[in-house]
């Protein structure tokens, strides 16, 4: 028997005045998973989260949480907590009052309330700041108050809507680890919206990549990185993104519309031995490695990852090589094609 998913979205659709928010979104989330909804702005990831939270009601489809159909239930009946992008802290209430607001509303006895407050503040490292107002806290502290408010009630499902987007880069990195650890320690299920693919890839067990209201791919970070189902996923995931080369530019790949190639799989070749001849456009030195941007008339986003310091003057012509095994093949619709279905010419080339 297949275990019931903890959260299940089935054929969800929502539109406003004929404008599609999300369409045909189906997603199963096992208990204890960290799921990232990833995509560019306007892709419907926040809408999906709001539908799940009960802040919006879907036009079509079914939402099941913990075996209960909550499609049309109010937000408060869904037994979940949420961290907002703006944190949505009540500005006139102290940290403690903000955190226990929900407990008070649900008439939790005072002693239990204080105990839960103490624990939540301890977990989020806010002990000692109980009486401060949100206005007197730093951005990172406010973020932790929002987290404390989300975990204090002990709900098993926690929704997070771009919780790190208002923090500076350094803090973001630290809080990312904190959130992940918190999720694992508490064993809760987290659905996390972000437009930052690094965030999604580093934190999530399951990444759901969306575009224009539709799910593009659901999978582990490895699956999205190593086997993108279409060119959109290929170009969205990874830094730098996957380079796309027109099939006819590469000998033996005439039947493939587009070929994808990751930066780490490209190497420089001696003159005459390379498979593509490109021009260097820019070099980006990052310490441990250097990204060399390359231009080719039939390719976009070609980047070569070279170890250490490897600067080349721009305008310089170089030849690059790569193994066939590292190529990702896409058809004319942008869909991934299994390598086994390749034309014999390509196979011949493979063996060569």
């Amino acid at each position, binding site marked *: 028997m297949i275990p019931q998913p903890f959260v299940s979205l089935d054929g969800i659709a929502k539109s406003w005045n004929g404008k599609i928010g999300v369409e045909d979104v189906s997603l199963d989330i096992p208990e204890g998973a960290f799921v990232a909804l990833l995509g560019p702005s306007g892709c419907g990831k926040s809408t999906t989260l709001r539908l799940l939270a009960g802040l919006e009601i879907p036009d079509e489809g079914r939402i099941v949480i913990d075996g209960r159909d909550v499609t049309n239930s109010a937000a408060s009946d869904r037994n979940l*907590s949420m961290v907002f992008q703006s944190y949505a802290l009540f500005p*006139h209430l102290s940290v403690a009052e903000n955190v226990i607001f929900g407990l008070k*509303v649900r008439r939790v006895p005072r002693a239990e309330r204080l105990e839960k407050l103490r624990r939540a503040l301890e977990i989020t490292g806010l002990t000692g700041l109980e009486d401060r107002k949100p206005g007197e806290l730093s951005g990172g502290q406010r973020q932790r108050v929002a987290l404390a408010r989300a975990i204090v009630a002990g709900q098993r499902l926690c929704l997070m809507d771009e919780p790190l987007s208002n923090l500076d880069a350094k803090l973001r990195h630290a809080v990312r680890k904190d959130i992940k650890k918190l999720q694992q320690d508490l064993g809760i299920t987290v659905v996390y919206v972000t437009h930052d693919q690094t965030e999604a890839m580093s934190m999530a067990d399951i990444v759901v990549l969306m575009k224009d209201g539709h799910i593009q791919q659901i999978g582990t970070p490895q699956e999205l990185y190593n086997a993108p189902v279409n060119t959109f996923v290929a170009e969205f995931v990874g830094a730098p993104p996957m380079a796309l080369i027109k099939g006819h530019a590469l000998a033996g790949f005439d039947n493939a519309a587009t070929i994808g190639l990751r930066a780490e799989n490209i190497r420089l070749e001696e003159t005459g031995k390379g498979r593509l001849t490109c021009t260097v456009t820019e070099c980006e030195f990052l310490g441990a490695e250097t990204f060399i941007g390359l231009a080719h008339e039939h390719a976009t986003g070609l980047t070569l990852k070279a170890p250490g310091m490897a600067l080349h003057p721009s305008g310089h012509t170089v030849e690059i090589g790569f193994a066939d095994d590292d190529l990702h093949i896409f058809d004319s619709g942008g869909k991934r094609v299994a390598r086994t279905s390749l034309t014999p010419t390509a196979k011949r080339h493979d063996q060569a």
Partner: protein
Amino acid sequence: MSNPHANLERRRQAIYGWLLLSPAALLLSVFAFYPSLATLWSSTFSRGNRRNPSEYIGLENYADLFADPTFWLVVRNNLFYAGITIPVSIFIALSMALWANSKIPARGFVRTAYFTPTVLPMIAAANLWLFFYTPGLGVLDQIGALFGLPSVNWLGQPETALWAIIIVTIWKEAGFFMIFYLAALQTIPEDLKEAADIEGASRWTYTRRIVLPLLMPTTLFIMVNAMINSVKLIDHLFILTKGGPSDASKLILYYVWEMAFAFFDAPHAAAMTMLVLLVLGIVAAIQFFLIDRRTHYQ
């Protein structure tokens, strides 16, 4: 220790500061400070006539006022007037704002309708209400007649005259205060409501625990304004009752005006003005120092 350059710089800053202050200081001096002092000064002189020229009499004018039963009646009227108009207009303004801020059909129309009384001059509003109150012809009597009720002279009898005035004031003020509440409500982010929803807070809990506290600065501002208006706003008295019948609807400022320009008794009017200034100052100070401390400003 002091070097000449730093001194010069300090002096330049001081001059700059005074230059910035001077326009407001000048206007306030001419139109507020000097008149107040002049009023205080003239309230200590007797009323002069051809036989007895005006002379310094100290606090005698004030003593006269305290001995005047009409003065006390007017004070009582005004306290009652303020005691009803301030809380009721604030309550109505808040209710209307909460309603007009929610997602209702024809929201623009509702807001405009509420605001209309505010754009009318008080004199025009009073004339409008004259049509409602007039015995026999008035709208109220016409409606009453449909149910067989006897004609009532709302403005003409001591028991109802002040109430009639109060209702006009509330009608006029509530829409104005609603605009302030509406503006304040728009600054409350939508996601606070959503966060409260997820925590399971009812609409009432959200209003009581989140919205009302966040509106406190506005409420304080409106309270001070409503209080000042309860003394200042007397235009409608001229149209509706002229303070009558038998002083039942007379308010302090109207009495001051009457004293000064109908009875030509400027010293007593000046004394009364000083008392009004004093009381208003004390109440405003109490509002700001006591309530301000418990108010959260964003």
